[in-house]
């Protein structure tokens, strides 16, 4: 038997492969979204899938996010497994009614008599110069909503495996993809595989501080950890991966070990994911192990600006993570 094939794929290619394998395995799976057909998707994620699977399974929708989301919900109720692409996560604001009032609640409101097997993909985040209405990180909104699962994979390996797990899932799963990650490369097995929803992962073991990061911030946190290790600070970096349900056990265990916690996320700081991680630890058994305040590094309390210098300054960058963690460790916070 040959060793399983592992190739380097970009994050976007890993998504495309997961979508193709899901469609191969299950005729109920289909894709819908704006310009996902012949255009290949605004970020070339669906690429040429329309040529391989046809327009019935790779459906371009009109520009009508609310209605199209509702169509996806209805199709899911009636036996399909739609995978819906928002062109930018910001446009989810148009469709929250179907996501939150319908998809997230139908199973509960109907006493468990149905499920809504729906996957929605949200290209998110800043860094492309697309300004305030095309750069938001709104994952905290959906992570606030019971009935949804929310994931935010940070590597090509994870996005493929978690997306396949999401498509298997009987309940609505919201997938946040940072646009700057699409071109990132990494090892991805050719075969289909699953990475479980609801499990965080320790990306770097350490003893001096636990840094819980999400999405692209995982990579900045890892960079920061490398720099800090040169200064004798040994950071543990945890990739949250799933925002709902949160893997509290992994984080609590880490904080008990390190006694310090920093949360790094791109969404607006106030009520962003770090608020929940921090509060979860502050109310947990790990509280007694805390040797320092819990540091939160989130996005600025401002919309994302167009100017690139301001844009960078609006979200945590590696140097800022280094500086603030250093401050924390040196008791300056």
């Amino acid at each position, binding site marked *: 038997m040959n060793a399983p094939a592992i190739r380097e794929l970009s994050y976007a290619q890993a998504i495309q492969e997961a979508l193709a394998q899901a469609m191969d395995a299950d005729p109920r799976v289909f894709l819908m979204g704006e310009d996902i057909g012949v255009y290949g998707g605004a970020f070339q994620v669906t690429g040429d899938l329309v040529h391989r699977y046809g327009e019935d399974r790779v459906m371009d929708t009109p520009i009508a996010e*609310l209605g199209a989301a*509702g169509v996806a919900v209805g199709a899911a109720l009636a036996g399909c497994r739609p995978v819906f692409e928002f062109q930018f996560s910001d446009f989810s604001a148009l469709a929250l009614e179907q996501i939150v009032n*319908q998809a997230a609640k139908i*199973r509960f409101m109907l006493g468990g008599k149905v499920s809504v097997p729906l996957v929605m993909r949200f290209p998110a985040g800043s860094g492309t110069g697309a300004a305030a209405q095309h750069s938001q990180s709104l994952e905290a909104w959906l992570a606030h909503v019971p009935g949804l699962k929310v994931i935010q994979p940070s590597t090509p390996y994870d996005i493929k495996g978690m997306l396949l797990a999401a498509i298997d899932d009987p309940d609505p799963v919201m997938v946040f993809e940072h646009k700057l990650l699409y071109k990132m490369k990494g090892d991805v097995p050719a075969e289909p595989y699953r990475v479980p929803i609801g499990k965080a992962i320790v990306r770097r073991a350490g003893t001096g501080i636990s840094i819980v990061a999400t999405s692209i911030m995982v990579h900045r946190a890892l960079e920061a950890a490398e720099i800090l290790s040169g200064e004798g600070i040994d950071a543990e970096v945890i990739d949250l991966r799933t925002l709902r349900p949160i893997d509290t056990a992994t984080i609590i265990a880490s904080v008990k070990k390190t006694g310090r916690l920093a949360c790094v996320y791109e969404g607006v700081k106030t009520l962003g994911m770090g608020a929940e991680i921090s509060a979860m630890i502050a109310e947990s058994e790990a509280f007694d192990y805390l040797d320092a305040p819990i540091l939160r590094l989130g996005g600025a309390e401002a919309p994302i600006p167009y100017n690139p210098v301001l844009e960078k300054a609006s979200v945590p960058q590696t140097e800022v993570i280094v500086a603030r963690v250093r401050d924390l460790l040196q008791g300056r916070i």
Partner: protein
Amino acid sequence: MNVQARREADPTNQRPFYRQFQPEALQDALRRMYLIRRFEEGAEDSYMRGLIHGTMHLSIGQEASAVGSCMHLRKTDYITSTHRGHGHCIAKGADPKLMFAEFFGKEEGYCRGRGGSMHIADVESGNLGANGIVAGGIPIAVGAALAIKKQKRDDVAVSFFGDGASNEGAFHEALNMASIWKLPVVFVCENNKYGMSVSTERSMAVEHVADRAAGYRMPGVIVDGNRIEDVSEAVMEATARARAGEGPSLIECKTYRIRGHSKSDRNRYRSKEEIEEWAAKDPIRHFELELIARGILDEAQVDTIRAAAEQEIAEAIDFAREGTDPTPDEVTRDVYTVDLA
């Protein structure tokens, strides 16, 4: 119109509706209309007596559109319904016992007491659910129709909604998609002249909701929503069209709700005269008289059907009152298909 006049209007029983359906089906339709009426009167009464909490939206006076539309539907056809959905639910085949159990918040209810009036659903009969969001069900019906098409079934999805709902963007988006994709869906608008307190004159730029159909290149048909045969014939044509792969239709049933919008309504936006005028056009009485005029039923048989409906509703309420209360430790049950740890 009295019985004699009705006889003269169609002396040879030519109307497709009366030729298409067997007498049993017609009697069953009348029975369902009574069930709806008595169900809602029973619900109202239970509410007044403090047995039911929350609020409810009664469709008394609108029974013909619900029953007339659903007469053509199979169990595998879908409907999506509205906040004013008791009629649709019964018309599509629900059991009033399980509906009342839901109203009473019981485990035996269709939604195990979690949904109540505004979310009542009977998925087994093809009712994908009432909806608390005006127009929320319209795109969902289009999605169900998309699934039907993908699965190569010849079923249809029928979406009920009100005049007010047609002002929502979701209506526009859904009808456009249904049309471009030629989906097997029938949009049944129950135009009862008001969205809560706001009349169609004040909320809609066009006179008829059906006027909007042209914007989506689909037939737009106006019928007297208080005459079951008018509704039924229009829906028959639309469902046939849909099953044949010819795409969606919009049917506007002109009707009226006799009760207030909900329990908080003080009827300030309409006149007593208007209400009485419409009460005189009662869809159930109309249908009875037609059945009698056509010799399909006599008064005594009508009385029997009505009494049976009353009996069924009384029993349903008793059943519901004796149902099982959910326990407070079950608050997060059924949020997910597999409970989170």
